[in-house]
């Protein structure tokens, strides 16, 4: 299984990510999820979110999740980009792609990674109020 992880304060370039997609013969499904910053947080308007990561541990925990996904489903590749620092409303904060032979395992693995990430990967967010 091929994996790629990027944790960076650079903007997520979805176009570039899609151009680098690798679909070997025998692989028929690519599922990806893009998460963007909403304009409200707990009912209040915000202008951005500041993401903070414990980088070394986040990398370790993401790779443990990738390994677990690979054990549960026959996955060809996983690519994940998580942005840190200030992310404006409407900008992408996370992008995850799973490539697999069939859609069932691609959807399931993608959902698993996103769900578990919110439980174990040490990244936190701090909403930024409008005007700041």
């Amino acid at each position, binding site marked *: 299984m091929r994996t790629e992880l990027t944790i960076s304060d650079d903007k997520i370039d979805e176009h570039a990510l899609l151009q680098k997609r690798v679909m070997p013969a025998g692989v028929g499904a690519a599922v990806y999820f893009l998460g963007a910053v909403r304009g409200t947080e707990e009912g209040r308007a915000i202008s951005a979110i500041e*993401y903070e990561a414990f980088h070394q541990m986040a990398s370790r925990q993401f790779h443990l999740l990738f390994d677990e996904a690979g054990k549960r489903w026959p996955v060809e590749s996983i690519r994940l980009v*998580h942005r840190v620092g200030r992310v404006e409303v409407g900008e992408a904060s996370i992008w995850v792609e799973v490539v697999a032979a069939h859609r069932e395992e691609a959807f399931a693995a993608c959902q698993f990674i996103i769900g578990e990430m*919110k*439980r174990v990967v*040490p990244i*936190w967010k701090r909403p930024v109020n409008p005007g700041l």
Partner: protein
Amino acid sequence: MAANSFIVALVRVRVHFYSYFKDLAGAAEVSECVAPGSTLEELLRILFARFPKLAAMRKSILIAVGVDYQGADYVLQEGDEVSLFPPVQGG
């Protein structure tokens, strides 16, 4: 030195705080010394006394040593890098 005296080398660890725990502790990292054989639970007791605002978070605190999660019964080793943080919120 008296015949029944002995020296116990304390275990020194570094403690890192993340997210709003930095605000509660008023620092991003501190050093602590604990008795040999001490667990994370005993370290927490020391830290809660030193940083009372952290004690209010005891039920939701997550603990790692190095880059792996550990439970309260983990026995601390010299030079351990301990991290304390609130529930994670990525995505």
